[in-house]
């Protein structure tokens, strides 16, 4: 009959593996660690694992593909035992390296611009001359903090004292863990924040942007963006005292949302004798200095906090079901897998209907 079934899948896979493993000109993990710190931050966030050295290794291995690198981190993460959980941490305890507020000109503790590209001119620096000039023009450094770091008061706390934002209460229930229990909707806020913190940066920014452009009632202003290092503590297994394990590099955003009239409006009903006029709050947190994602996350969280809000950002099930980089890219890219059995089934349907259509037309023509 002259037909041999196509085989050799294993050989093809081994050959592909050899091609991607060719080492020439490859960056190593140390080079990535020095030269691509912001990419490491993004990969750690989307990979759900704080491990800068491993993220650098993953980026080097993935030839700079952030989602592939996050995939490597996630797969590694799921082999690690859970030794324990840290105690709740308060962003006010952050060793602040940068801290800005857009709601007030000046804030207690001061604005600290820190290390940012925000106010630089985006010119390609071909021969490094611009960088050299910038270094030479540096004003004398001002040190913040002495032994131990100053605790910066929170901007939102000042508004809270005035009753302009909702009082927060400690939620004594254990936070949800979406890596252990499948998300179900409506999701508890802890599950929402966890899912968003692991969300893909590009998706989050696009959704946050859509809320800003008017798809929904959000009108956000950054009450405070702070980035730096936050110490994490666990309870000592014997003495039960809190013990500092180390610190993680984070960016935290508290977003004030003002919904003027209309949808959302005055959203929080106050106690007796109190005005119900309040701002809504949104919270964003990202590993490292992924400020873009933390801001987007706080817009999305704020959008979801506005009662009877509409638009993509306020649609919790839509956002949380589609924000994970590995789920979305995995399913989109699985289209590269062979689908010829299902396609054969579809061919059968289309051909059957074409035949039925053609014979019906022929029948009509004959009748005429």
């Amino acid at each position, binding site marked *: 009959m002259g037909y*041999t*079934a196509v085989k050799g899948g294993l050989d093809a*896979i081994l050959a592909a593996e050899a091609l991607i493993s060719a080492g020439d000109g490859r960056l190593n993990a140390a080079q990535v660690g020095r030269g691509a710190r912001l990419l490491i931050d993004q990969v750690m966030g989307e990979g759900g694992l704080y491990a800068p050295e491993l993220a650098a290794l993953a980026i080097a291995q993935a030839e700079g593909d952030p989602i592939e690198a996050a995939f490597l981190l996630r797969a590694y993460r799921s082999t690690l035992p859970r030794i324990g959980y840290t105690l709740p941490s308060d962003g006010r305890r952050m060793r602040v390296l940068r801290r800005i507020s857009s709601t007030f000109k000046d804030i207690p503790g001061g604005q600290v611009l820190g290390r940012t590209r925000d106010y630089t001119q985006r010119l390609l620096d071909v021969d490094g001359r611009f960088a050299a000039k910038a270094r030479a023009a540096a004003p004398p450094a001002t040190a913040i903090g002495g032994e131990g770091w100053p605790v910066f008061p929170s901007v939102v706390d000042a508004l809270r004292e005035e009753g302009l934002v909702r009082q927060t209460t400690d939620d004594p229930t254990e936070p949800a863990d979406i*890596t252990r229990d*499948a998300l179900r*909707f409506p999701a508890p806020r802890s599950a929402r924040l966890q899912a968003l913190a692991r969300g893909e940066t590009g998706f989050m920014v696009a959704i946050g942007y859509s809320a800003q452009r008017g798809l929904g009632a959000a009108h956000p202003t950054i009450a405070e963006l702070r980035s730096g290092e936050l110490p994490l503590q666990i309870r000592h297994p014997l003495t039960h005292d809190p013990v500092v394990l180390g*610190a993680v590099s984070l960016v935290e955003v508290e977003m004030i949302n003002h919904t003027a009239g209309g949808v959302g409006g005055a959203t929080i009903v106050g106690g007796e004798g109190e005005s119900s006029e309040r701002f809504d709050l949104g919270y964003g947190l990202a590993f490292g200095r992924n400020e873009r994602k933390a801001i987007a996350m706080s817009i999305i969280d704020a959008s979801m906090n506005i009662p009877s809000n509409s638009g993509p950002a306020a649609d919790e099930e839509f956002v949380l079901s589609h924000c994970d980089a590995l789920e979305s*890219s995995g399913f989109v890219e699985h289209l590269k897998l*062979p689908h010829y059995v299902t396609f*054969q089934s579809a061919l059968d349907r289309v051909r059957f209907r074409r035949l039925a259509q053609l014979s019906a037309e022929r029948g009509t023509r004959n009748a005429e």
Partner: protein
Amino acid sequence: MVIDQQRDPQIPRSAFRAPRLSALAGAPEAYNYAFLDEVSKREIRRALLKAVAIPGYQVPFGAREMPIARGWGSGGLQVTLATLGPGDTLKVIDQGTDAGVNAVNIRRLVERTAPGVATTYSTAEATIIQSRHRFPEESLRADQIMVLQVPLPEPLRMVEPRESVTRQLHAEADYTRVWVHLYEDVITNGEISRASGYPVMVNGRYIMSPSPIPRWDIDKLHQSASLTLLGAGREKRIYAVPPHTNVVPLDFEDYPFRVEDFSGKRCARCGATDTYLDEIIVNGGGRLYACSDTAHCDERVSAERETRNAE
């Protein structure tokens, strides 16, 4: 318990020089048997037991991150890894063939992480068969387990995008919208146009997606002697069809369910006229047909050769 961090002593600078978490985590150690840790396997097995107890019901589970991509069989793989042990014989197929690239990849992962598990191309030899989009042609026995990879477990998604709503519709067995949808399909297209992943009623209670198997394979689920487990990793759902369970495709009396039509066609290799066929475009634009189940086809070819040699 929440500690009052404001009242804690100042955290010394040295805290920030403490080793990074990654240093504490250490070097990647040898992977656990069958990749997943034992606690995860136990959780998946509990979900499987619940799924078997409620045929066709989608049990949520905490799908783990696997070293293969989500959407590429990570759900089926978790079910397989939680089910197999030393002494098992595993067959992995994709679109009916053991040699498909994704089948090869999954088989390699099991071979690498689960010593003592044999792998085979033979359906008869296998104790566990993981498959994407196909059932083997030959009927399975009571001592075999079929594991299907599922991309979209929710059969009601075509009429309702919200998970919170579909959950309720299932709970109340409120399937009116599905029936109306199928009716409208008949009106618009002249027949129910769903090609693969055809919705089925399981045990007279739950409407279930059989995974994107062709309609040809639906009958293999009905009153099967073997257990069928379905795993959706990205969607974090597990469900099952226990042995000897009714699995009935949704249809109307005057528009009955029909399988793919291969009348007048036969396999170009083994000559079979009773199997699901792959259509292959040959040079010059002609068509050629060959068995989708390549192991079954190989067995037929070698059996024929033996008969010829014996003669």
